Structures are given as structure tokens and as C-alpha cells.
């Protein structure tokens, strides 16, 4: 029983981080119907930018994190300007394909600049380890869950309570209508990519903190695929729920099925779950129910 609770808790904590990753995909998908396959590279770039501020410049954490995020946002915006903007008005599929190429290019660039070795990544944050009887949640996992949920809250606030948020949601629904009413759709797309890069960077910093940072850390970004497909590609709440489901699934499989001899099965399990979900609900659990006027 203690085992189960421990597993569930750990699954939920990592699940929130996955949810944040999923959010990074969802905001872009809503705005342009393109899937950003370069998410892993965004994650690595965000982490490295934070690494520069925190480990190289020795800034305090609560200064380095916002600076790192602003830098990641700027990087996301720059990438959008160079690769996505020229495609405005083309099909979303061409944007999706562009992100595939973008992923290879960014991965190679990171390798070129930072090398292929691992950087030790250890944030000396106040100890938040939770110890309840036989339960133990390590500090970095608790921090990861906590910061991710805060970041999630910030993004929700931005999307639903600010003028830019309203404009982003309007543009997501229809670029032409938005432009007819004076919303600059091109700028909105830039903002969306910056926002997505920032949310992915938060998740990236937290994931790097579990171990080390190298250009291969980006593989963790692929977790976002089952997350958004289970939750629904265009649902913000679905990203969080999908993240929690994937986190739980991974944790449960890791502690109950893998010991039976199926090593590595926890990486596959979310995809199996994904298949089952898609059989039952092709648009994901929370994919938009299209408004039908009757």
C-alpha cells in the first residue's frame, strides 16, 4: 500500500512537468494547427540558456530562472521569425514538416556549441523533501512539480485574463477574422512561439535537474507526444490531465511491471495507453467538442 501511494505521488509530480511540456505543444497547435516536433531541442536550448545564467554567471536561482525564460522566449521568437513566419497562409502540414528539419538543425547546433558531453546540473534549492512515515518524495521532484504548476498557472492567467490572451485565442480560432478586426496575426504567432518556448524551458530545467544536461536530454521532450494526443491536441486542460495520466502510467509500470523482467517497458507503456485512448476517443480525452449550431 505504501508502495502504491509512493508510486502514485511520484507519477503525479512528474506528470505535472509532462503537462507543461504538453502545453508547449498545445498553444502552438491551437494557434497554427502545426505540431512542433522540435520540442526536445527547445527543451535543451531552454535548459542551456538557464545553465549559462545560473552556473556560468552565478546568478541567484530566482533571478537566473526568469532571465533564462526570457532568453528562451526570445530564442523561440527568433526561430519562429526565421522558419515559420515565411509559411503564414500555407498549410499547417508544411509548418509541421519544417519543425522536423528544425529539430535536426537545432540538435546539431547545440552539439556544435556546447559539445556532446554531459553538464552536471544540480540546483541547490531549499530542501523540500517530503517524508511521511515510509513515504519519501525527493526534493528535486517536489520542486519540479511545484514550479511546473506555478508556470502552468501563469500561462493560464496570461491566456484567459489578459488582452494578449484574448487575442491569441481569437487568432487560434480564425486568422482571417482576427486580422479583419485589427489583430496582428503574425505578431500573435510570434508571441505564441515565445510562450511555448518558455513553458518548455521550465519543464526542461526541471527535467535536467533530475540528472545531467546534454544535447540528448531532448529525448525527454518526446513524452509530450502521448501527453497531447491523450489529452486532446487543442485542449489546455487536456494537456495537464494527459500529463498526469502519462506520469502515473509511467510510474505504475516502472514499479509493478518492469520488475517482472520487462526492462524499458515504462517508455512504451504511455504509447500503448495512447492507442487505447485513440480507439475510444479519436480526438483525445478533451479534444474540442466542435460547436454545432442546430
Amino acid at each position, binding site marked *: 500500500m505504501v508502495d502504491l501511494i509512493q508510486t502514485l505521488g511520484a507519477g503525479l509530480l512528474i506528470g505535472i512537468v509532462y503537462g507543461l511540456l504538453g502545453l508547449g505543444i498545445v498553444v502552438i497547435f491551437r494557434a497554427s494547427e502545426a505540431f512542433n516536433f522540435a520540442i526536445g531541442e527547445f527543451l535543451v536550448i531552454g535548459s542551456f540558456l538557464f545553465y549559462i545564467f545560473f552556473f556560468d554567471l552565478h546568478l541567484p536561482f530566482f533571478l537566473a530562472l526568469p532571465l533564462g525564460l526570457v532568453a528562451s522566449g526570445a530564442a523561440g521568437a527568433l526561430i519562429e521569425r526565421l522558419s515559420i513566419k515565411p509559411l503564414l497562409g500555407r498549410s499547417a502540414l508544411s509548418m509541421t514538416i519544417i519543425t522536423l528539419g528544425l529539430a535536426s538543425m537545432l540538435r546539431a547546433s547545440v552539439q556544435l556549441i556546447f559539445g556532446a558531453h554531459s553538464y552536471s546540473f544540480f540546483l541547490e534549492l531549499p530542501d523540500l523533501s517530503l517524508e511521511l512515515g515510509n513515504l519519501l518524495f525527493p526534493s528535486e521532484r517536489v520542486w519540479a512539480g511545484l514550479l511546473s504548476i506555478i508556470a502552468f498557472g501563469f500561462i493560464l492567467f496570461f491566456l484567459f485574463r489578459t488582452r494578449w490572451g484574448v487575442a491569441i485565442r481569437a487568432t487560434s*480560432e480564425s486568422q482571417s477574422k482576427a486580422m479583419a478586426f*485589427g489583430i*496582428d496575426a503574425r505578431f500573435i504567432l510570434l508571441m505564441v512561439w515565445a510562450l511555448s518556448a518558455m513553458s518548455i524551458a521550465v519543464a526542461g530545467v526541471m527535467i535536467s535537474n533530475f540528472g545531467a544536461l546534454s544535447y540528448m536530454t531532448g529525448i525527454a521532450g518526446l513524452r509530450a507526444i502521448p501527453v497531447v494526443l491523450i489529452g486532446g491536441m487543442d485542449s489546455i486542460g487536456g494537456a495537464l490531465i494527459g500529463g498526469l495520466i502519462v506520469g502515473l502510467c509511467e510510474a505504475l509500470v516502472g514499479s509493478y511491471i518492469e520488475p517482472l523482467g520487462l526492462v524499458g517497458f515504462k517508455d512504451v507503456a504511455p504509447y500503448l495507453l495512447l492507442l487505447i485512448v485513440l480507439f475510444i476517443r479519436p480526438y483525445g480525452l478533451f479534444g474540442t467538442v466542435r460547436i454545432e449550431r442546430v
Partner: protein
Amino acid sequence: MLSVENLRVVYHDVISILNGVSFKAPGGEISVIIGANGAGKTTLLRAISGMLDLYDGDVIEGDIKVGDSSILGLDSTDIIRKYGLTYVMEDRPVFWYLTIEENLAAAAYSRWDGAVKMDMEKVFGYFPVLRNLRSQKAGYTSGGEQQMLAIGMSLMTRPKIILFDEPSLGLAPLITEELFRIIQQLNREGMTIVLVEQNAHAALGIGHRGCVLENGRVVLEGSAEALLENEDVREFYLGAGAKQRRSYQDAKRYKRRKRWL
């Protein structure tokens, strides 16, 4: 005053839609454009409001002016901000998944002054029914309410010139009448209005002047009264006039006359 001079527009570099349209909308008046489907009415409005890019259309000749300055090549955001020219697209251009209030707020995005709340109240003054629906998603409101919202949204941009693309599309005659009354009221308050309509009778009824667009050309123009009296307009756009079937020869006569106009 809005003027379009000899405008030619092609889509995808090959499909020619406007073949030299010239047309004037004097300030403070309602100008009506009528024409059959495919005549180029919507394209004309898209060109004026700077939305052609989005549809892969290009202006290859001609000019569009507000007052004395050319607005050709500007995008919609600049045209709204600098010239106060707003385009209300056809088929009720509201954001379905946003509430009525958010729709109005989204349309006010191009403005930075603090009077947004005040203008929202003004819109609710024009359309009291929207006030009660303010926190409802626009997709769940009726067609008439959506068109009212669309007009309200255009007002949120503080326009001096509004282009309406078939506001009566798919609406009951009573609702259409009310919308046209509001459009007339806006005009009396000093707004210049360009009204594209299939419902030629009602539109010419409130308009000051009008023109007929066919195959990307203006084939007739004049005061609204004159157009209402014109025999060809009556026959082809108002469904009145000769009741008996016309012979092919007569149709040819009309076509030939059109070519010279």
C-alpha cells in the same frame, strides 16, 4: 472619402477577379454595391481592407485611396489603426469559442486607450440583446445575434469607414430590417458605409448611391433612387419588371449595352 481607381486583382497569379474597378464612396454616405455571385464584391472589399495577402491575391494595377493617401499595400492592422477603416466579413465573423464580451475585447485589441469599457456599453446600447448574453459563447447564439455582435465588434475598432459584406446573409427579413436600421443610424452619426448586398431592394432603400458589379467591372452606377428605377437593375437584381420570358435576343441586347458602359 474612399476611392478605388481602376483596380485589378488576381488570385494565385492567374485567376483574374477584378478587371479594372473604379468606384467612389463619398464621406458620410451609404454606398451600396450589388452584383451576382462571383462578380468580385468580396474581393473588392478584401482588397480595400488589406486582407488579400491571406487569400493569396495580388493587386496588379490600380490604386485605393482614403482621402488623398493611398492605402494600397498596407496590411489590415495598419489600415484599421491609421485610417479607421474596418471590414466586417461575410457570414458573421465572430469568434465562436469566445464569449460575447471577449469577442468585443478582442476586436478592441488594436487600441490602447482606456475607453474600451465605455465603447462596450455603447455597443450594448445599440444591441440591448447582447448585454444579457455577454458571458455566453458566441457560437451558441443565434444568427441575428451573431451579426449584431459582428457589427458591435467593428464598432470597437472606432471606425470612420465600415465595409459590410452581406450583413443580411441567412437572416430573417425582420432581423435584416433591424440591422439595416442600425446601419442607417451609424451613418447618421457620421460614419461612411460601404454595403455589399444580394438583398438589393433593401440595401438600395437605405443607400445614397450604388453601383452594380459584374465580372469584375462596374457596369452601372448612380444614385440609389436612379438604380431602383433602372430597368435592367429592376429586371436582373430586383426580380421585378418584365414577367414574361425574355427572348435570347433581349439578353444579348443587355450584354451588348453592358460592354459599352
